[in-house]
């Protein structure tokens, strides 16, 4: 072709683009973030409860800590599940890993007198191994992680029950609380932070008292700190580090990622290990909190985590999503789970309420995202 023709074809398109640049404002770009729909969903759910639970204690400091704690525990595993889902895989063994990790902490500590930190390290080591096996099986066989980890859903739960019954004859092991004091590692997973601040606020009369006449909030439960911390780290990793880029790439198109030099297998193994670790963190917090381990702990948590991640705007097919979205998903989940007790709805309708609210949140989220895409 002649050079004059080339110039003619380029010139109008260049001016086209100039116009388009101006249209991409900061807000339009923000609207395109995966977590924005979830934020809208969270606002909707909060608005719902402000109206339907008005005058109740839901949005007092105590009520907030109450639902935040439920959200936080879910949020811890949801963060890891989000990274894994962005990386293109599922882990259905999270819930069972929670049960097994609890048993692995409780039995050595209570039955065999191990220091708690050693028992916790044992649980983390086993979790690492489970994640490593999960990841390698998925990598080597090429089977959907859905199937591979479903096997571990049963294996780990069965191991928790089997080991616990074999060694103690029971399925519930109590008496862990007395091992916590003085164990610095265990204290990372137990108690509350900023207790001084809260007693100071209570002393100034800024915090109300609860049904028992105590200051309603004595501190921030450690689970909330873990939740915020993990969400922040995961967000940093996803948005700012090469490893985060590899996660997106592995989930978006594993083959393309590998061909571009991304160590896809290593990324996936590390993500599976991280979900198992997050389940262990969950187990640590709950075991320290309740003072007991139970083989049934964590039942259906894998499903809740996946729900939270999807509410948070991640794609089930991988390659897209955010840790902040997962945190918002967990927040919505925790708020809805606890919120029913403030609305006066008979709890016989608990699961209907939960399902309807989650569905509404997801639909609204989806609607917002579509709107944002159109606006783009």
């Amino acid at each position, binding site marked *: 072709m002649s050079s004059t023709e080339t110039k003619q*074809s380029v010139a109008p398109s260049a001016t086209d683009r100039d116009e388009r640049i101006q249209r991409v404002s900061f807000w339009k770009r923000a609207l395109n973030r995966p977590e924005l729909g979830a934020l809208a969903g969270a606002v909707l759910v909060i608005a719902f409860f402000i109206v339907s639970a008005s005058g109740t204690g839901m949005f007092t400091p105590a009520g907030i800590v109450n639902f935040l704690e439920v959200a936080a525990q879910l949020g811890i595993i949801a963060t890891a599940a989000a990274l894994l889902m962005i990386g293109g895989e599922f882990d259905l063994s999270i819930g069972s890993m929670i049960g097994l990790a609890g048993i692995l902490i409780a039995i050595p500590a209570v039955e065999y007198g191990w220091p708690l930190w050693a028992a916790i390290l044992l649980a983390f080591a086993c979790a690492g191994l489970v994640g490593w096996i999960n990841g390698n099986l998925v990598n080597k066989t090429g089977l959907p992680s859905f199937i591979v980890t479903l096997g571990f859903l049963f294996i780990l739960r069965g191991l928790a029950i089997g080991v616990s019954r074999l060694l103690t004859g029971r399925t519930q092991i109590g008496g862990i609380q007395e091992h916590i004091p003085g164990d610095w590692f265990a204290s990372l997973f137990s108690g509350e932070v900023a207790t001084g601040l809260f007693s100071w606020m209570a002393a100034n009369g800024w915090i109300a008292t609860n049904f028992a006449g105590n200051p309603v909030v004595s501190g921030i439960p450690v689970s909330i700190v873990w939740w915020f911390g993990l969400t922040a780290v995961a967000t*940093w990793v996803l948005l700012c580090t090469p490893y985060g880029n*590899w996660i*997106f*790439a592995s989930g978006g198109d594993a083959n393309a*990622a590998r*061909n571009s*030099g991304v160590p896809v297998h290593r990324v996936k193994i590390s993500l599976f290990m991280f979900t198992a670790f997050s389940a262990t963190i969950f187990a640590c917090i709950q075991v320290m909190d309740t003072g007991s381990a139970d083989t049934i702990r964590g039942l259906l948590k894998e499903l809740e985590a996946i729900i939270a991640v999807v509410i948070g705007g991640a794609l089930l097919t991988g390659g897209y999503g955010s840790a902040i979205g997962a945190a918002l998903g967990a927040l919505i989940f925790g708020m809805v789970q606890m919120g029913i007790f403030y609305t006066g709805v008979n709890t016989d309708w608990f699961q209907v309420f939960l399902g309807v609210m989650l569905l509404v949140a997801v639909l609204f989220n989806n609607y917002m995202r579509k709107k944002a895409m159109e606006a783009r």
Partner: protein
Amino acid sequence: MTTQTPMIEMRSVSKHFGSVIALSNISMKVYSGEVMCLLGDNGAGKSTLIKTLSGVHQPTHGDMLLDGKPARFKSPAYALDAGIATVFQDLAMVPLMSITRNFFMGREPTIGWGPLKRIDWKYADRIAKEEMARIGIDVRDPSQPVGTLSGGERQCVAIARAVYFGAKVLILDEPTSALGVKQASVVLRYIARARADGLAVIFITHNVHHAYPVADAFTLLSRGGSLGSFRKEEISREEVLNMMAGGAELENLDAELAEFQRNDRERKADGAPAPGHSESVAAAGHADAPAGERLASDR
């Protein structure tokens, strides 16, 4: 030139996929500062050959040498580390990821140290934008997902990326198939520049207009085997065209089209034109290049 060590050399390389023999006993030398053009029918094994070179596949038999030293790439990451950059036929792009993220996928530029080591997004965005501008694509927003780009724009990202990272060897597998004339000419200029910079270039195309001007040598593959390498001096444009996918068939096509044209003219003379049909035949008839070459360039 022939006295120096080849930048990349294959010695009797074979690749089997189970019972499928995709490559058998291929030997090939590519020197730095030289463009090797791979020719062959669809399914001849061109993509398999370059995937073996770029570490996607490991050869079943045979050896590969990079700059005279034996090379075995366990994965594409190793080939990239060795300075071999590839534009794959499927582009190896992740549609959901941004242009910048795709551009630097697997080779992210970082700043900071230790746990604070992070991607230098400012630098990365700037380079991605600059490199895309050089290929003639004005990227309005480097954080735009690649999935929203047109096929040609996507190809340009892949090419710009390979050109940016290719230190010793640049491999392009049908890189111009979705490109407009302007971008295609930019790609050819790139290839010429890479050659001038002393890279070894391996180039796969079905378009003789693209292949002939830039190539220094041609290797013809057929059904997994090599029919030999030829220097450009030894071979004419027409011979290259014939070696390309179904050159003989195109000649037949030319004859057939001429036949249509003749029939059409006769029909017009009879005063019974076929509406709508006549236009396309006329276009074919009045085009200045033979239909065979034009069709080849349309791929």
